[in-house]
């Protein structure tokens, strides 16, 4: 579980945890609100209402994942891993898989281009959650705006604001390079 950017928001009376690309965070604290800003990236907000635990991830598939879980592409494996990290984090904090429910956000098309990476990302997330039997109780994907999302992990409340591309933070207009799939660097040497 990663969530390095903490701050206190007097207006919200909550501890804000900013979840950036490649990160995920899980909490059982009713005073925590998770925030993120999305362009073509996806944030999945998943929680177990009964256990009072929820979490958010934020990911961008490395290339045009086509949303077909069985395609076997590196992009889909990366996305599946991002979702797995979040789900495992929830299970470790007492969630039960069969009670999980999800809200998904992002997948916008901020610029004119032939490929619609945002749509591919949204299709992947929807397909993944459907295959894993996790209901999507609410979603806001696609469109041409960036999104500011705030998620209260214990109650499941979400607040979203659309942001014009020109006003979106730099990291949304130009997403960070995607971490490459595991290399051997840092591995334990078994052979």
């Amino acid at each position, binding site marked *: 579980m990663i969530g390095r950017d903490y701050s206190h928001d007097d207006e919200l009376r909550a501890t804000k945890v900013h979840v950036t690309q490649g990160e995920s965070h899980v909490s059982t604290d009713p005073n925590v609100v998770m925030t993120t800003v999305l362009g073509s990236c996806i944030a999945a907000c998943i929680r177990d209402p009964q256990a009072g635990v929820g979490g958010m991830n934020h990911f961008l598939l490395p290339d045009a994942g086509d949303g077909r879980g069985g395609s076997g592409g590196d992009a889909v494996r990366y996305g599946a891993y991002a979702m797995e990290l979040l789900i495992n984090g929830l299970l470790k904090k007492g969630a039960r898989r069969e009670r999980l429910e999800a809200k998904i956000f992002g997948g916008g098309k901020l610029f004119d281009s032939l490929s619609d990476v945002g749509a591919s990302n949204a299709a992947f997330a929807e397909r993944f959650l459907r295959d894993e039997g996790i209901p999507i109780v609410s979603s806001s994907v696609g469109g041409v705006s960036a999104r500011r999302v705030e998620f209260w992990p214990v109650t499941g409340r979400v607040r979203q604001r659309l942001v014009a591309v020109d006003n979106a933070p730099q990291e949304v207009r130009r997403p960070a390079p995607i971490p490459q799939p*595991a290399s051997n660097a840092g591995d334990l040497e078994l052979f």
Partner: protein
Amino acid sequence: MPQASSISVLVVDDQLTMRALIRNALQQIGFKDIREAPDGEEALKNLLAKPANLVISDFNMPKMDGLALLRAVRSHPPIRQTAFVMLTGRADRELVQRAVQFGVNNYCVKPFTVQGLRDKIEQVFGQLT
């Protein structure tokens, strides 16, 4: 050189999507005899009923996790020789060290590439055809 198509594999992961992705990667490498189990408990039953040459197992799973499955496999004489490759997250260095103690043959860090998985399996079986 062993033929991938002659090696039977049991894929163990609690996420259907991940099992599908691992199966797909194995098929790209040339494996044909591929079975699946959603957790360690089911995997152990499956192996005792019909042994496999290779187990590729996730660590975090309900009922019986990957490490417990590895220990169970190594403690059942009929299947104790089964090659065992553990799938781990990047931060699971301690887990890998424990898995080595319990006799894991190799491990593969998620998210993996097809070539990365192939390399890990070939380190156990030798170059595959």
